[in-house]
């Protein structure tokens, strides 16, 4: 379980996060939604400690991450996996080496054990026989899947996905969403996903948090979001709905 308690953050004069609190439960996917530029990425990076918060604290299963020293943080980091918006695969390593990287860095596995684990993770994201390809040689959807494989290589307790299906075609987007949902249940992970895609909200959100201008504006279920009378939320949902209708 991840608990975020009253965190705020400014860049210079500009406050991009105001007093946000949330709880993400184990085995469930917590969705953070909102328009572009409203602070989803900053929120996620603050939760994982890639950005320092000005006020507030983040607790990982009761452990105060914000107060930890570098060494303790590193231990918690090894329980985290993260899928970045652009996948952030290491350009100089091939698919297999990318997934093996955290294992080589932090486990005492032998080469065979590593390869076995890598192939298990790649199989889990339906990528087989691509071990020797480089990131520049595979499609966006495949990169995201490799990114997921790398994120789950160390058996994380916490999984973070920043816009997992941005830049993907709708079919691939659904595949990625399903993967995240299944993996979260299967391995009982605490998962937080950033998205601005309503399809994802309907598909994977156990809990939905709507961020508006750096604030938590609304919280509820993926069903509830269709019936709320909160103006900004229904606008967000509505525009997505209209687009969907137009596509039909």
């Amino acid at each position: 379980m991840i608990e975020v308690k009253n965190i705020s953050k400014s860049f210079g004069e500009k406050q991009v996060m105001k007093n946000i609190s949330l709880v993400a439960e184990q085995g469930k996917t917590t969705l953070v939604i909102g328009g572009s530029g409203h602070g989803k990425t900053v929120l996620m990076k603050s939760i994982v400690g890639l950005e320092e918060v000005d006020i507030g604290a983040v607790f990982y299963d009761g452990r105060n991450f914000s107060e930890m020293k570098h060494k303790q943080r590193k231990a918690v980091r090894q329980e985290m996996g993260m899928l970045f918006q652009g996948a952030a695969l290491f350009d100089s390593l091939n698919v297999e080496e990318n997934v093996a990287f955290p294992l080589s860095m932090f486990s005492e596995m032998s080469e065979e054990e590593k390869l076995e684990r890598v192939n298990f993770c790649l199989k889990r994201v339906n990528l087989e026989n691509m071990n020797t390809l480089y990131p520049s040689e595979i499609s966006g959807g495949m990169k995201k899947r490799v990114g997921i494989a790398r994120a789950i290589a160390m058996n994380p307790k916490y999984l973070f996905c920043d816009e997992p299906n941005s830049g993907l075609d709708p079919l691939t987007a659904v595949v990625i969403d399903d993967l995240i949902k299944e993996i979260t249940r299967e391995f009982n992970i605490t998962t937080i996903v950033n998205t601005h895609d309503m399809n994802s909200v309907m598909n994977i959100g156990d809990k939905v948090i709507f961020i508006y201008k750096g604030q938590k504006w609304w919280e509820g279920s993926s069903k509830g979001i269709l019936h709320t009378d909160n103006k900004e939320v229904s606008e967000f949902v509505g525009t997505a709905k209209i687009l969907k209708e137009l596509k039909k």
Partner: protein
Amino acid sequence: MIRYFSGIFMHIGRYYTLMTQVFSKPEKKPIFRKRIFEEIDKLGVSSLPIVIIISFFMGAVITIQAAFGFESPWLPLYAVGVATRDSVILEFAPTLVSLILAGKVGSSIASEIGTMRVSEQIDALEIMGVNSATHLILPKIIATVFINPFLIILSMFTGILGGLLLGILTGVVTPYEYLYGIQYDFKLYNVTYALIKTVAFAFIISTVASYHGYFTKGGALEVGRSSTTAVVYSSLLILLFNFILTQLLLA
């Protein structure tokens, strides 16, 4: 003006903080060793051709210029050899070649690390618990500090060889006088001095370029800008430290 200076202090402070992060214990020895060899290959071995070509012609030009400048009956003919040797060893090989390397190696370091920053690969390292500064930058520093002295020694040889071959070819020197001049009153300390400079310059190139890459913000455009500023700043610092070290070591 005040803004300009506070900018400089901000850079110095941030550079210093980065260096304290860089010089910490690497995660896994074997991986780290592999990283160093990768960097030696990428930053050192790949620079061999440009160093050889530049040094060869540089030596040739110095010899020809010296020969024309010394057309005085009072100077012995071997003076051309002495002049070429001293210019190449003292200044042209360590400083000029380091400036060229600041352009080649510096821009490649800054754009590689900058790209990793803007594509969130550095964040990906950090989230795994890897100290990205140590993992990415320390091997580059070690590689350049180790390999640049070899490049500069090679530059000295090819420079002097260029002077010899093209000097003979253009008829401005004879092999005997030139080679006599090269050996005349040779001071090994000059080579030591040049190598000390080289090591300092290698440190400047790798750290300044890494610094600019590491703190890149934005996208592809900013990566290009970082790599340009990295080259400008490391070149200026090389010239500054060239002056300081020369004062300290020769004066």
